[in-house]
C-alpha cells in the first residue's frame, strides 16, 4: 500500500517571544516522499490548541506551502499573549498547531488529513533575548531530541535542516556552522550551504534499523568559539517486504496422540520466521495479518484439531548490527478429547499466509504427520495382594490400584470399582479423586477386621473408561494379619491431637495402619516444613496434599486438610489448606484450631537444689 508523503518527525518545537516582529521565521518542516515526482504541500490548521480545553483561531502563524517554513505573520503583543495563556494551567504556556501534508495544493482549509505533525510553540513571557545571552546549546538546537524516522524502501530526500531559522534571523552577526559526525559510510549527507541533512539512498530496515550520528555545532563570535554536540538519531520504519521462511527448511513435524488425549494438548509445533517486525499491540490485527489455516475437507479433522498461533520478537544479525524480526509458532492443538478407541493416521496441512506481503512467496505450507494410537484399558498381569493389619482403623490407606500406564493418562476418565465379594467380610472400599488417575484402597469398616472368620478376602476390581465404556477386571486379595491389641482408654480419635512423642505412640486414631499413631520428629529449626507432629502414617500425612481419603474426615489428617485457624508460627499450604510449615510441634483439634509451638517444658528448668538457691 502506498503511504504517500510523510513527516520524518512527529513533533517540532520552538519558542515565541512577545513583540517578535512579523515575518520572523520560526522553524522548517520537511516531508519525505513515497515515490519520485511527488511534490509536498504544507498547510496549517487554522486553530491554535492552547490546552486540551481551549482553542483559538490562528492569527499569527503561517506556513509556506512549498518550503514548509513556519513563520510569524504578525507580531504577538502582550494582549495576544495574555489571551493565549488563559486557561492554561501549565507553568509554561504552550500552543499546539497541526501541520498537514498533501501531494496536491490544498483546496479547502481543513483540519482533517491523516498525515499531520504537531508543532509546539512555547510562549515566553519576555521579549526576544539578546544573542549574546544565549548559550551555544540554545543557539544551535531546540530542546527536542534530534530523532527522526524514515520509511524503508523510499526515495532519497532531505529531511532536516540543522540551522534554526529563528536564531539565524535574530543573530545574523554570529557565525553558526554545523557538521555531521560519524556519518562516513552511512547513507546520509550534510549540505553545508543549506545545512540540510538528506538520506542518500533507499534504506532497508532488515539490514539496519537504527543510525546513530552526532550533530556538532560551532558558534563563532569574534575570537570566541563554542562547540556543542548532540546525538542525531534515525530510526528506519518497517514495512512488510519479507516473505515467511522456514528455519533449517523444516516444514514437517510428527504429532502422536497416545496417553495424553485431553482437549488443549499441544501435539506439535512448527516455526516460521519472518524478517519483518510484527507488533504485538494491537494483537488481534497482527493475528489477522499472519494467518494459519488447516487445509481439510474432513469435518472430523476440523472439529478435532485447531491451530494456535503465537509470535515473538527475535533478532537477526544480517551484517553485524542487530535487527528485529519475528518468530511465528504454529501449534497443533487438540480441540476436544479423543476417545481411547480412536485409531488413525493422516497428514494434516496448515497454510501460513503473510497477507500483507506482496509477492509470490507469501505463504508457506506446514505438514503435521498425525498418528492417533488406540490405548487399551487393562491391568498389569499380576493380581493385587494387600495385607491389612487387624488393628487398622477406618480410613487407613492400604494401597493404590492403577491400570497400565495410568499415570501417563490425560483426558481419559477411568473409574475404579470394587465388585462386591460373595462373603460377608467387606472391610475395604475404593475412592478416587477427580483428577486422580488411580484408585485408593482404604479401610471402610474396621469392625470387620476384628472378626476372626475374615482372613483372606477376594475381590474383583473393575476399571471403566467413561467415554468408551471399555473396561478391565483384575483380582484383589486382602489378607488380614496380626493379633488384636487392647485399645487404650482415653485416647482421642485423631492422632493429630497428641502433642508429645510418648502419648502419640501409645494411642491409635483414625487412619492408622497398625493400631498406633506415628511420631514425626522434626528438625526443630524455626518455621520448617519438617515440623514435629503425630500422624496416622508418616507416608501420607503430612505430605502437603489433602488427598481424597484424608478429606473424608477432618480427624484423619488435619495437618494436610485444616481450613481453620493455626495458632503460632506457621505457613499455610496450597489453597489455604493444611499446615505447610510450622514452628516446633504442630497439633490439631479437628474442626477447631491447630497450634504450632515450641515444647519448652520438656526439660525441667529448675531442680530442687536450684529452687532452694532461688
Amino acid at each position, binding site marked *: 500500500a502506498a503511504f504517500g508523503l510523510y513527516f520524518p518527525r512527529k513533533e517540532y518545537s520552538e519558542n515565541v517571544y512577545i513583540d517578535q516582529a512579523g515575518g520572523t521565521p520560526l522553524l522548517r518542516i520537511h516531508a519525505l516522499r513515497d515515490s519520485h515526482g511527488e511534490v509536498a504541500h504544507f498547510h496549517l490548521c487554522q486553530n491554535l490548541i492552547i490546552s486540551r480545553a481551549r482553542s483559538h483561531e490562528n492569527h499569527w502563524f503561517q506556513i509556506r506551502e512549498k518550503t514548509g517554513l513556519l513563520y510569524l505573520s504578525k507580531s504577538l503583543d502582550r494582549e495576544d499573549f495574555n489571551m493565549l495563556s488563559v486557561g492554561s494551567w501549565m507553568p509554561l504556556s504552550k500552543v499546539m498547531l497541526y501541520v498537514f501534508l498533501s501531494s496536491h495544493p490544498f483546496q479547502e482549509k481543513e483540519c482533517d488529513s491523516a498525515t499531520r505533525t504537531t508543532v509546539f510553540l512555547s510562549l515566553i513571557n519576555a521579549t526576544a533575548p539578546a544573542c549574546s545571552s544565549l548559550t551555544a546549546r540554545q543557539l544551535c538546537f531546540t530542546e527536542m531530541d534530534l530523532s527522526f*524516522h524514515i520509511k524503508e524502501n523510499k526515495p532519497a530526500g532531505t529531511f532536516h535542516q540543522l540551522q534554526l531559522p529563528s536564531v539565524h534571523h535574530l543573530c545574523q552577526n554570529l557565525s553558526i556552522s554545523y557538521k555531521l559526525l560519524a556519518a562516513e559510510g552511512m547513507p546520509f549527507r550534510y549540505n553545508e550551504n543549506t545545512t540540510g541533512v538528506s538520506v542518500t539512498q533507499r534504506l532497508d530496515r532488515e539490514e539496519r534499523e537504527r543510525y546513530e550520528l552526532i550533530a556538532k555545532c560551532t558558534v563563532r563570535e569574534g575570537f570566541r568559539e563554542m562547540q556543542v554536540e548532540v546525538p542525531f538519531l534515525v*530510526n528506519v520504519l518497517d514495512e512488510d517486504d519479507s516473505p515467511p521462511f522456514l528455519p533449517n527448511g523444516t516444514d514437517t513435524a510428527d504429532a502422536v496422540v497416545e496417553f495424553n488425549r485431553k482437549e488443549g494438548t499441544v501435539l506439535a509445533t512448527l516455526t516460521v520466521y519472518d524478517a519483518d517486525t510484527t507488533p*504485538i*499491540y494491537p494483537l488481534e490485527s497482527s493475528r489477522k495479518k499472519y494467518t494459519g489455516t488447516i487445509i481439510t475437507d474432513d469435518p472430523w479433522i476440523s472439529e478435532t484439531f485447531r491451530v494456535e498461533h503465537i509470535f515473538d520478537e527475535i533478532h537477526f544479525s544480517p551484517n553485524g548490527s542487530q535487527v528485529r524480526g519475528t518468530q511465528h509458532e504454529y501449534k497443533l492443538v487438540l480441540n476436544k478429547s479423543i476417545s481411547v478407541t480412536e485409531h488413525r493416521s493422516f497428514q494434516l496441512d496448515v497454510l501460513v499466509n503473510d497477507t500483507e506481503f506482496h509477492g509470490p512467496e507469501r505463504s508457506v505450507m506446514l505438514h503435521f504427520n498425525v498418528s492417533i494410537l488406540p490405548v487399551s484399558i487393562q491391568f498389569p498381569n499380576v493380581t493385587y495382594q494387600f495385607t491389612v493389619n487387624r488393628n487398622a482403623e477406618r480410613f487407613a490407606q492400604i494401597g493404590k490400584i492403577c491400570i497400565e500406564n495410568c499415570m501417563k493418562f490425560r483426558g481419559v476418565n477411568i473409574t475404579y470399582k470394587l465388585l462386591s465379594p460373595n462373603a460377608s467380610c467387606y472391610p475395604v472400599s475404593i475412592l478416587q479423586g477427580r483428577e486422580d488417575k488411580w484408585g485408593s484402597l482404604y479401610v471402610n469398616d474396621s469392625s470387620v477386621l476384628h472378626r476372626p472368620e475374615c482372613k483372606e478376602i477376594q475381590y474383583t476390581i473393575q476399571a471403566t473408561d467413561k467415554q468408551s465404556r471399555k473396561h478391565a477386571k483384575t483380582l484383589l486379595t486382602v489378607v488380614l494379619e496380626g493379633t488384636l491389641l487392647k485399645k487404650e482408654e482415653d485416647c482421642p480419635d485423631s492422632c493429630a491431637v497428641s502433642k508429645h512423642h510418648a502419648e502419640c505412640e501409645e494411642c491409635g486414631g483414625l487412619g492408622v495402619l497398625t493400631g498406633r499413631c506415628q511420631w514425626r520428629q522434626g528438625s526443630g529449626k524455626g518455621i520448617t516444613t519438617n515440623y514435629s507432629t503425630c500422624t496416622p502414617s508418616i507416608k501420607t500425612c503430612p505430605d502437603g496434599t489433602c488427598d481424597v481419603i484424608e478429606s473424608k474426615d477432618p480427624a484423619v489428617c488435619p495437618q494436610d486438610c485444616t481450613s481453620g485457624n493455626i495458632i503460632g508460627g506457621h505457613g499455610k499450604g496450597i489453597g489455604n*489448606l493444611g499446615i505447610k510449615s510450622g514452628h516446633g510441634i504442630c497439633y490439631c483439634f479437628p474442626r477447631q484450631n491447630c497450634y504450632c509451638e515450641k515444647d519448652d517444658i520438656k526439660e525441667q528448668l529448675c531442680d530442687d537444689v536450684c529452687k532452694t538457691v532461688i
Partner: protein
Amino acid sequence: DCVRANELCAAEPSCSSRYRTLRQCLAGRDRNTMLANKECQAALEVLQESPLYDCRCKRGMKKELQCLQIYWSIHLGLTEGEEFYEASPYEPVTSRLSDIFRLASIFSGMDPATNSKSNHCLDAAKACNLNDNCKRLRSGYISTCSKVSATEHCSRRKCHKALRQFFDRVPSEYTYRLLFCSCKDQACAERRRQTIVPSCSYEDKEKPNCLDLRNTCRTDHLCRSRLADFHTNCQASFQSLTSCPGDNYQACLGSYAGLIGFDMTPNYADASTTSITISPWCSCKGSGNMEEECEKFLRDFTENPCL
C-alpha cells in the same frame, strides 16, 4: 471541582442540554464521525464557556470516580486521537509549606550519626506499625496480597484495591517513608522492593507491551487520570534545578504513589542500592514501528531524572 461544576451546569437549562448532547456524541462507538457532526461541534463550543470546561478533581476526594467521569466525558471529545501525554485532571499540588514538613519527616531518618547501621525501610515499617490506621491498612493489603488459593496465585484485583486504600487513606508521612526509604544494603533495598507485595500486585506471567498496557490503563477513568497526573508532575523538565516541573518534587512522588494499585503499578526493578530503576510491568518487545514511542513512554519511568 467537576462534581460542583456539574451541579452548576445542571441548574442552567442551556448548559445541561448541551452537556447531554455531548455525552451522546461521545457515547457512540464511532466517536470521531459523531464529533464531526454539527450538533456535537456546537455543543462543544457552548460548553467551552461553561464551568465544566476548566473543572478538576482532587485526589482521594469524595466521589472521586464520579468527578473523573465528568471530566473525561468532556475531555475525551477534545483529544483528537491519542495523545502521548495527557493533562492531569487533578488540581495541582500547591501546598508547598506542608510539603516541606512532609519531606522533612522522610529525611529525618537520615541522621548521619545513626547512618551506618540503620535500615530506614525497617524504621518506616516500625513507624507504620505504631500508628493504628497505618498498621491496620498495611496488614490489610499484605494479607490480601499474600493470600494463595488452589487455582490462582492471588486475587490481583482485591490486592490492588487494598493497596489503593492504603495509599489513599494513610497520611503520606507514613506511606512515602515506606515507599521511598533510602538504603545502603541489599536487605533494605529488597524490603523496599517488597513493600507493595510485587509477586501479586506487580509481576505477572508475561510482560505485556508497554503501549498495550497504556491502552488498557486508558480504558479505565481512574487509571487514566493517575497516569496523566504522573506525566504532568514527573515529566522531566530542563527548566528547573531538580528536573521536576516547577521544582515540585512532592507532587511527583504523590503521582507516583497514585499509580500503585492500578494496571500501571510501578515498582523497583531490583534490590540494587546504587542504581534505582523503576518500571511498570511491561517491555517494549514487539513494538514494531512504534518502538520509539514505546521506549519514550518507558523512559519516563526508567530514566527519569525528576523521579
